[in-house]
């Protein structure tokens, strides 16, 4: 992301980290989360869920930034992310800015 002016606390801002939770049997395999994850954390699994769809699975472990875009875009309420424990409280603020950056990058035109 380009800044017009470098924020004073730029060095202190930590990139938030999150963990993806997938409710596999609720998934209908639309692929929205895979396509729009800004960090390309997900791919569609080769395995089937109970209904015969391919749910997503995490391939880039540790790269989720907890932006929750997957949760927002999933039409089946089958995926979301949670902040990783150790950073949960201090990173609320940066989680917001990371959401905004996601928006700039391309989910919204």
């Amino acid at each position, binding site marked *: 992301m380009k800044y017009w002016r470098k924020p004073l606390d730029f060095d202190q801002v930590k990139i938030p980290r999150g963990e993806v*939770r997938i409710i*596999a049997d609720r998934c*209908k395999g639309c692929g929205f989360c895979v396509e729009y994850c800004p960090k390309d954390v997900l791919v569609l699994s080769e395995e089937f869920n109970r209904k015969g769809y391919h749910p997503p699975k995490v391939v880039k472990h540790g790269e989720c930034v907890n932006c929750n875009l997957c949760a*927002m875009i999933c*039409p089946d309420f089958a995926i979301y992310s949670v902040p990783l424990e150790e950073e949960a409280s201090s990173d609320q603020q940066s989680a917001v800015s990371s959401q905004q950056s996601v928006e700039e990058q391309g989910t919204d*035109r």
Partner: protein
Amino acid sequence: MSTTVDPNQVAVDEHPVSPFLRMDRIPHIWCPTCGIGTVVKCFATALDETGVDLDKTSIVSGIGCTGRVAGYMKLDAFHTTHGRAIPFATGLKLGRPELLVTVFSGDGDLVGIGGNHFIHAARRNMDLMIILVNNFIYGMTGGQNAPTTPLKARSSTMPFGNFERPFNLPHLAASCGATYVARWTCLHIRRLTKSFKEAIRRKGFRFIEVIAPCSTLYARLNKLGTGFNLMQFYHDNAEIRPDADTRDVDIEFQDNIICGKFVDEERPTFTEMMNEHYQQKLGDKYVPLPPEGGLLHE
């Protein structure tokens, strides 16, 4: 880290949308790559982030795919007759003015069979928040032509392509008097959620059109792939022009979709007009209906 095919009960319980949904009815009936679920998620997020009193929030739907939304939201929910969501909601709002009444339904329901109610509720500035999911077609009944089907697009009752001019919904709503008018696609999750949040806080007839993919019928009949391909199409062809004149936001078949918040203004609602008018004419003799509703003997 994450789970794959193993169902994870913890994940089910902790899904952030769970408190807003009737989880005993999930999974929902919508097809793979249908966009309605995404719109529901954005709406639930908006309810969450605005902190409205959910006990005082009602949702009314008509009939159709989007008409099923009321059935999934954990609010006072009314799944009514085809096209009549708005007049039903009008009764609900006037009967108990303190309620936040939202109408969540589809294009065929709200502006096809329910078109007359739509324009009159907008004219009266009835205090309702209308969320219209526009998938350009009658989905539940099998892909028949809708009043929103773009020219040339195919539907099961226009097998050689549609030759009827569709509605330009933001313009329809704005010209009838809606005080808040926005259009997004269901790919615009953040902006859509922001619009929902704004609309929840406004008064009067608030109208948000959400373009969403219908994979099973609209996409298939028009050989557009699936809803996934339509999402990509929105990505490439949705143009945000909040200053656009609503007259210019018609949707042509597989052409640009102009999005944005087009109208955001204040105008007294039906109830405010009524109260002010009667107070002026009748003075102390006027007894308005209390916010908590009419004559109840418990």
